[in-house]
């Protein structure tokens, strides 16, 4: 349906920019309402959104269903953890090493798995990430399955202190925003066209002369490296790494985020990560059996709401629904945590989304009535 991943003004772009703005204001809100948990929660959301952006590149745009993407979070995180254990805290050593290790792992996993397609590819990426999981479990020197505590965060010298939570948050936010912009450029470039063409029809790609494997491998390595960066950030955020970060259900979570948000759309991973984690947070405050609701919800989305949140926004009625639900939850949920003052701007934001959705829906309805194809 989309001709190209374009930044032309569309509902999704508008909502995404609004969302990014709202995210940028989180540290301010946390300060104003004296709620550090808000900042902790959203730091995690932003970091996982970055991981989702990297997965969206190969899954959404490239059609490579990697069920082992969490392994790269683990590699990046463990690189930091291991170096920290050996008392190497300098960021300018830690971070390049972590990114390099992630790239190498991605290269290796890619070489082993990218010759397979379909279900085989899913299974082999799953199995290879399990290999990494067991590797981490067996690394008794680095905590084994108990995990490894990180005593000190990456040291950037005087540049920025990662222990200062707002500064750390803005670093994560900036990296997320940057990754979104870079993805936009990448998917519209020649490289991106090859990737997307290969997803659409890789037999034809070979017939017209593209050696598809090397482009897929490159995309896989890029995605793995960016995900490794997310791992680096996560390690610094939680001051802890453990094999649990690499378990295949974590990879499943990432895939859910990408699909929920809208596979192959630019802002899909952003919507998906925020949606998934916020939903998790909100639902779990109602009942400890929230997964009971979440499981069937996921099934329903898969069956009926192709295109995820991004698609729903594009159609308009999704926006309205989101506006109503989001407004209700935020009003009601916000009520539980923070005082009423916060409910007002949140409700306004959701209302704005709802209004835009309404306009979009009316516009599409009018176009359909006039006989144009939307």
């Amino acid at each position: 349906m989309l001709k190209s991943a374009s930044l032309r003004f569309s509902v999704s772009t508008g909502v995404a920019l609004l969302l990014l703005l709202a995210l940028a204001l989180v540290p301010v809100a946390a300060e104003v309402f004296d709620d550090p948990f808000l900042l902790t929660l959203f730091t995690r959301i932003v970091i996982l959104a970055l991981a989702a952006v990297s997965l969206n590149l190969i899954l959404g745009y490239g059609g490579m269903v990697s069920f082992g993407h969490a392994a790269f979070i683990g590699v990046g995180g463990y690189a930091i953890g291991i170096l920290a254990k050996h008392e190497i805290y300098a960021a300018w050593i830690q971070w390049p090493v972590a990114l390099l290790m992630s790239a190498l792992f991605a290269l290796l996993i890619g070489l082993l798995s990218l010759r397979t397609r379909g279900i085989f590819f899913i299974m082999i990426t799953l199995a290879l990430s399990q290999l990494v999981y067991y590797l981490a479990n067996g690394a008794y020197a680095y905590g084994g399955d108990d995990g490894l505590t990180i005593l000190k965060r990456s040291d950037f010298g005087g540049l920025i202190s990662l222990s200062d939570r707002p500064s750390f948050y803005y670093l994560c936010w900036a990296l997320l925003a940057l990754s979104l912009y870079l993805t936009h450029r990448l998917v519209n470039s020649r490289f991106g066209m090859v990737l997307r063409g290969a997803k659409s029809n890789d037999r034809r790609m070979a017939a017209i002369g593209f050696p598809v494997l090397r482009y897929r491998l490159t995309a896989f390595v890029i995605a793995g490296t960016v995900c490794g960066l997310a791992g680096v950030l996560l390690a610094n955020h939680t001051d802890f790494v453990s094999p649990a970060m690499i378990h295949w259900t974590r990879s499943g979570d990432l895939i859910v985020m990408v699909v929920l948000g809208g596979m192959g759309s630019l802002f899909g991973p952003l919507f998906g990560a925020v949606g998934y984690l916020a939903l998790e947070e909100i639902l779990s405050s109602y009942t400890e059996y929230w997964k009971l609701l979440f499981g069937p919800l996921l099934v329903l989305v898969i069956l009926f709401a192709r295109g995820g949140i991004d698609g729903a926004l594009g159609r308009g009625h999704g926006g309205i629904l989101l506006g109503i639900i989001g407004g209700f939850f935020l009003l009601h949920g916000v009520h539980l945590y923070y005082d009423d003052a916060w409910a007002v701007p949140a409700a306004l934001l959701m209302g704005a989304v709802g209004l835009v959705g309404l306009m979009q829906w009316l516009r599409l309805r009018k176009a359909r009535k006039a006989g144009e194809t939307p």
Partner: protein
Amino acid sequence: MSSPQMNQPVLRVRELVKRFGGLVATDNVSLDILRGEVHAIIGPNGAGKTTLIGQLIGELTPDSGSVEFMGRDITALPVHARSHLGLARSFQITSIFLDFTALQNVALAVQAHDGHSFRFWQKAMDDPALLEPAHAALAQVGLGHRADIVTSALSHGEHRQLELAMALATKPQLLLLDEPMAGMGPEDSARMVDMLRGLKGKVSILLIEHDMEAVFALADRISVLVYGRAIATDTPDAIRRNEQVRQAYLGEEAPV
């Protein structure tokens, strides 16, 4: 008829054999495609035409025999490499990029032959080096006015035209056309025949077709494939008169 000077074989197939279990799909096939000619391959269904094409473009590896293109042995060469030597192919069952526009489809084919694609920054669809040849190829097949339509919205006939445009965009020496007129109505077919006639002499064509009118209108030479064997290779008139061919394939319906 083809002129004597264009008589270098652009493609040489020598004793090609392909078996699937007990079935011999390609049975010692040898043929030459001369430069500039339109060479048609006809034969009943199941004769092994698609298997033959598969081996020529590299999707299938022959059990024995060789394929030589422009003097070079390409028998083991991968599919994408053959495209770069000048071999282009259109698919019998339309195989295009459905989520892209017609222009993007052709631009991709142009891009494949415009150096490597490890360019990560510039927007591909703004690049005149891609857009101009793409527009030209679309115009050549008569789809110029449909360039910005998403291919899933195009008609079947337009899909077949797009198939051809993509193959042409790679500036091939030899076009392998696998039933280009499949599923087309008489008007569209006639248009396609005219289009192909316009290409005669400029590019060598290996044409697989069932549409006998088109075959006899376009072909310089015809090879007949039956049960994986090439039973005859000759000019259209000679083929029409060939008793073996009439029995095996043309029967009573040969256009006289």
